[in-house]
């Protein structure tokens, strides 16, 4: 599936965080939930740089910390230790209002469900982040995005009148239209049937290839992960492995071996 794009990738700490070629990055990321005996180390020293124009998939068993990593990188949650940046801006120095504005301008989101505001039409949902900023979308770019995603004729419909696949495509359009530094996708195809899921993934792939968009996707599904340029494997809050230019089978094998490690670790 990889279209042969150049992938610069590293998991070492040598890459400086101020590297402006990176769309987003974290270094020494630690996230601890709770206190004392009951505390959980959801992230345990993660270093990650997302190069511009790259499509990264994050995999791992439940509780491995992949959602936490995404939330902390996207400015939805704050790190206990370490630092995160998006488009050159250090997140840990920002207060809530500034973080919110950063999400508005530099981040796009695609969630598994509840992606759209029920009362707004497709068009209004797509324009929402820009409108919240008091901006208007660039008409040409808007048209380009919606026609590429094939939802031109669904723009005046509300989410209740859209199919699951159409809803996710509207969500992709919303994420693209503000030209963010990075798009975070959390199980974007988790609620879709196989055909619709494949279509949405292909469109995300196209966004990377044709528009140079940076995308991070958290997923359970090896087939989905194989669309990415590389797959990172998270286990117990650490990046334990990665595959470049993955195939579904390779991803599947790696996941199985991770599960085995875990089972053995428990016993």
């Amino acid at each position, binding site marked *: 599936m990889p279209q042969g794009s150049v992938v610069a990738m590293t998991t070492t700490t040598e890459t400086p965080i101020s590297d402006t070629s990176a769309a987003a990055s974290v270094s020494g990321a630690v996230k601890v939930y709770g206190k004392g005996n009951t505390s959980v180390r959801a992230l345990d020293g993660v270093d990650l740089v997302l190069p511009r124009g790259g499509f990264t998939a994050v995999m791992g068993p439940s509780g491995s910390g992949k959602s936490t990593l995404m939330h902390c990188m996207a400015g939805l949650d704050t790190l206990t230790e370490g630092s995160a940046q998006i488009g050159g801006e250090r997140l840990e120095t920002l207060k809530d209002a500034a973080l919110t504005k950063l*999400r508005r301008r530099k981040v796009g989101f695609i*969630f598994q469900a509840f992606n759209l505001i029920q*009362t707004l039409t497709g068009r209004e949902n797509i324009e929402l982040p820009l409108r919240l900023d008091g901006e208007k979308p660039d008409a040409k770019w808007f048209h380009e995005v919606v026609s590429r995603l094939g939802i031109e004729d669904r723009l005046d419909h509300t989410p209740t009148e859209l199919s699951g696949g159409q809803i996710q495509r509207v969500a992709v359009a919303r994420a693209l239209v503000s030209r963010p530094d990075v798009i975070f996708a959390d199980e974007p195809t988790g609620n879709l049937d196989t055909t619709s899921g494949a279509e949405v993934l292909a469109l995300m792939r196209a966004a990377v290839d044709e528009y140079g968009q940076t995308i991070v996707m958290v997923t359970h599904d090896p087939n989905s992960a194989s669309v990415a340029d590389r797959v990172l494997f998270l286990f117990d809050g650490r990046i334990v492995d990665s595959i470049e230019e993955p195939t579904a089978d390779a991803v599947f094998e790696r996941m199985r071996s991770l599960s085995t490690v875990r089972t053995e670790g428990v016993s």
Partner: protein
Amino acid sequence: MFRVAVKGVLARKLRLILTSIAVVLGVGFVSGAFFLTDSMRQSFDNLFTQAVEGIDVQVQTKEYKEIIERQATSGTAVVSLDLARVGMPEEAVTRVRDLPGVQRASGSIFESGVLILDKDGEPIGTGGAPSFGANWIPEAADIGALRISEGDAPKQGEVLLDATTIKNGKYEVGDDVTVLFQGGRKTEEFEISGVVKFGDANNLNGAAITVFDTKQLQGLLDMGDRYTALEVQADEGVTQTTLKRTVAQTLGTEYDVITGAESAAEQSEAIDRGFLNILQNVILGFAAVAVFVGAFTIFNTFTILVGQRTREFGLLRAIGASRRQVLSIVVLEAVLTGIVASTLGLLAGYGIAGLLRGMINSFLDGGIPSDPFPLTQRTVLVSYAVGVIVTLIASLLPAWRAARLSPLEALRANPAHAGRGWKSPVAGSILLLIGGALVIWGFNPGDDASTQTVLGLIGGGFAIAIVGIALLSRLFIVPITRVLSTGLARGTTGELATRNVLRNRARSATTASALMIGLALASLVLVFQASLGATVDRQIDDILGADITVYNSTALQTGVGVVEDEAVEQMREVDGVDQVAGQRYGGAAIGDEFDPGGDVESIVAFDEGALETDGLVELEMDTGSSEPGDGILIDTDLARDEKLGVGDEIELAFSTDMTRSLEVMGVYEPNEIVGSQLITSIATFDELQPENVRAASGVFLSVDEGVKPTTVVERIRDELGRDANFLEILDTEALRNTFNDQLAPILGLVLGMLSLSLVIALFGIGNTMALNVFERTREIGLLRAVGGTRGQLRRIIRVEAVLVALFGAIVGVIVGVGAGRALIGALEDEGFVFAMDPITLLLVLLGGFLAGLLASVLPARRAARTDVLAAIATE
């Protein structure tokens, strides 16, 4: 199922409390009404029990008692009291004194209309309470209710004043004081010989009391050697009933003989049937509004809560719960909520009763004493019944909806979507028609309908119509909200708020309805006030040709207040006065028998010239002459009812036992300034009426051209000197203000009582908004994730609440003005004119705006604090 219901209630404590507030306040209003009136009843009972201390049997003439009772029930004094004729004769007192078993028999006098002037010559106010004169009974000095707390018993030329009057008049024992009798017909100087208390109280529940030497008081009240009552004390060992029998046998059927205990009970009952009953019903009426508003709020909350739990019910159904069981869970929850809320409401009632007492005291100078509020069985029962039944009724429809769904439908349900389609507007129209028909029926009830039936029809009809309007209002919520939002809800946040209002129109409309009811009533009251003002203006401008009106300001306290003929003559001489005419006012019965307890009409007479064209009172004649001459003028209503016309004779009987047939000289259109259906000449009037009404009850004056009425008012004051102190001398502007001043406190009280339903509505909006925020947690999380700031989230909720509240306020004002228009239309025959004051109505809208703003504070904060991660987490 009981356990499930209890757990359901406990799991939603906060929402339960929010829901309950509506019930708590409504029930609190109901119990508060009872607390307050029970407390007042108790203090009156104490007073009346004290009043009969040392009195085992009390005797009055039947005639006197009838007149007094009639005055108490009708509130007016069209029947004048000739005490020399109807009082208790000395001879009867002597006869009773010699009876066996009688220890003491004393003639007592207790009459209203004795006014004390302060040192500046102004009457000392009693805040609307009467001002009594009583005789000093030396033999009862140590046993009766009247006790001298300072100084000595009054001799000729001396009086005892009650402690409150002494204080208010800044008098001391030994000072001289001027006392007014019969509305100023007599004035006397007295020396204050001491201070009197009524039992332990400083005065008689707000009423003033002045005690005189018996002979002197009899002379001043023109009652010969009579009294108003005979009080008898029994020998030891003789019971009240035995003594009553003995006295009754001796005196015969002309006299009303009762025991002391019966007397106290009778007075208690009289005040119960009269003033207290009215007060209680008025407060309960407002309480009903509050409960009604509360029911809307509860209905809305239960609908939302049940909607949110549809999946839970689906699960229960899937694992084998029957429809009945699901229904019973919701109903049980409602009952539990009702019980908890009623308990809190009962407690809140104490506070609300205190609040009501404060409002009545400050608006109406009520002088309600700060006695404790007694908790009676009735208050407890009614409070729980109201709280539980209202909650139950409000929850039935949502419960039925929840139970109706099949398990799978319920599991799949999306709580945010609940369209009701065409059914609601149709049902709304039907309810509106039914309600409207009931109200119209209430206004034209037929002859044998009781007041309760009428009030029930109007109140019930209004309630049904309001529910109809609430259902219909959702038809207009889209256009009205759209118009409002172009002004108030700009930008993306405004658009989101607008969409939120419109996403569930039924919910928004019901939420708004709670506010709509209170504001509709407030608007109705304001329209009524404006119309009343306009009506008074019209009367003053169109019917009253006079520039200055004079009447006796003590009329309220004395029953009869007059302006003496001499004073009228003095006014005639004042520089700048053109015409002067007095109006006499008395009572007459149609037919050949005057029964003070029966139907008594008012009858008036004007000084010459008053009724002529361009005269002081503009009488519009239907037929005949405007001069009564030796005959009489009647109005068109009476002419129709009695089938009389010009040239016919009408037979009238008077309190002087005279009867007279008078020829109808003319028929006039009903006239509010005349205020009576019968007009005779002064000569006829004076011939037939008792001496004490043979003087002007009001005087109309016009001024010479080019002279300012205010200047003339000052001149009249100077001319009359001290006599002007108890006369109201008003130019048209001041007269207008007097009407408004009388109305303002009542309006204030009404609006004050309505404000409690507004508070309930405010909680209703807040509650719905809080539930909306809860329901939309995910959406709020999504908005935050894609870049909505906390401030923007707050703004969305705030604008949404304001839009809902303003919608309610607009519908409320429209409904209120519409109802006011209909009401004034129904009263057009009585001379009412419709008017409204746009400014006050705008203030009502502003009130709605502020209510929305206030209601949104907590929900908006909660929305802003939504945890983004928790909100967007999948499942």
